[in-house]
């Protein structure tokens, strides 16, 4: 039998095991080697107490179904818990969605009653939001004007998003799935620029100069 380079390399770290998957062979070869290792050859190190497993796919793109298959094989060992499946590559679709998420839209208009302004990513509105007008986005909302209507930041669940306005006088604020009305959780506004943010599921409103303490990384995008 010729010795071929192993398709799956298992390394131990202090955070558990890391499975390095070769990204130059076919997926079938990879699966076969993984099966072999899990089911036959590496019995000693793969048994024992619960171990966290990180799977590194390298430059191989795996569809969700393929990832699921790898997961199932590894899960055969009851003590292996998959912590993360990590790849250096993503599909164009994902890349596009990611790009949208990080976009920053500048809009100049008045959002009037009955109008809905909806975007992916962050939005900077140069104008007012009138009562019964809605601004909604997946990121943060910045209004250079009066916010008198409804603002919904992080509408796909981003709880780090904030809502900032030159004049904060909204009918309703939403961040993620948390809804707040003025007068309930936070008092009448001061008239200076303010922002709303989430802290332990509660909506709080503070003056703008407090922002760097609450969200120092806002504006710096995660890699």
């Amino acid at each position, binding site marked *: 039998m010729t010795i071929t380079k192993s398709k799956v390399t298992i390394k131990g770290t202090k955070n558990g095991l890391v499975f390095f998957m070769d990204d130059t062979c076919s997926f079938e070869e990879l699966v076969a080697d993984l099966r072999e290792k899990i089911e036959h050859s590496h019995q000693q190190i793969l048994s024992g107490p619960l171990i966290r497993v990180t799977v590194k796919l390298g430059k191989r793109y795996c569809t969700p179904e393929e990832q699921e298959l790898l997961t199932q094989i590894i899960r055969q060992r009851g003590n292996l818990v998959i912590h993360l499946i990590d790849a250096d590559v993503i599909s164009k679709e994902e890349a596009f969605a990611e790009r949208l998420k990080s976009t920053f839209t500048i809009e100049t208009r008045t959002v009037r009653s*009955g109008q809905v302004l909806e975007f992916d990513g962050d939005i900077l509105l140069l104008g007012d939001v009138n009562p019964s007008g809605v601004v909604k986005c997946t990121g943060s909302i910045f209004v250079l004007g009066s916010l008198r209507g409804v603002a919904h930041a992080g509408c796909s669940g981003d709880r780090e998003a904030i809502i900032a306005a030159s004049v904060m006088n909204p009918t309703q604020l939403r961040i993620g799935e948390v809804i707040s009305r003025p007068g309930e959780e936070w008092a009448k506004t001061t008239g200076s620029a303010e922002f709303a943010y989430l802290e332990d599921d509660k909506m709080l409103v503070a003056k703008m100069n407090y922002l760097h303490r609450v969200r120092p990384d806002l504006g710096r995008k995660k890699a």
Partner: protein
Amino acid sequence: MGIAIVVTSGKGGVGKTTTSANIGSALALNGQKVCLVDTDIGLRNLDVVMGLENRILFDLIDVAEGTCALQKALIADKRFESLALLPAAQTRDKNAITPEQMSEIVTQLKREFDYVIVDCPAGIEQGFRNAVAGADQAIVVTTPEKAAVRDADRIIGLLERERVGMPKLIINRVRSHMVKSGDMLDVEDILAVLAIDLIGVVPDDDFIIKSANSGEPAVMNHEARASIAYRNIARRLLGESVPLLPLEEKKGVFTKMRKFFGFK
């Protein structure tokens, strides 16, 4: 070629018809050829306010359906030679005419008249779309009430979408004593929200009700404050620069003295 101006508000009962009648009459007083068009099909009022109800032979729908020529449906006003009215049908509803037909009629009228004032029905449905079709400019009427301002805001948004030029605002039925005591929105509050050009503020005036009931446009009167306000709006439409009327009626020395001595 004339200009078509639609008078609209969203909310009902804020004074669209009164405003249409008075601005139209005031423009005619200034020597302009004016045609008033009532688009409130099924609930027509403009003819009543103008006192022309008994002269109606044909209406807007007859013209749209081709039953009669446009010229035959126009009612000449009994006071001003240069003022005409195209009444709405009372037996039909808003769906009896399409925006395209409406636009065609307005275009025809614009050839003959300097100003075509279109009185829009309340609401944002078919009636609104009909009235807006063919309009070059819009006048939004609101009263100093939150609900009316909210609806005006919605209408301004829709007008922007319909690409009717930047609407102008009339604030109707302002009661100076209530504004003073802070119980009524003041002009500044309303302008801060709506953010469009103000073309006039009309004080609340009993005379308006009286004149509407008698079928005489209020602008015929020279003393009533609302009449002066409407005449000023017409002058502003014609491009004159007229300062806003002070809301408070100036009290004479005699009245002040009487008040000082405790007489009412």
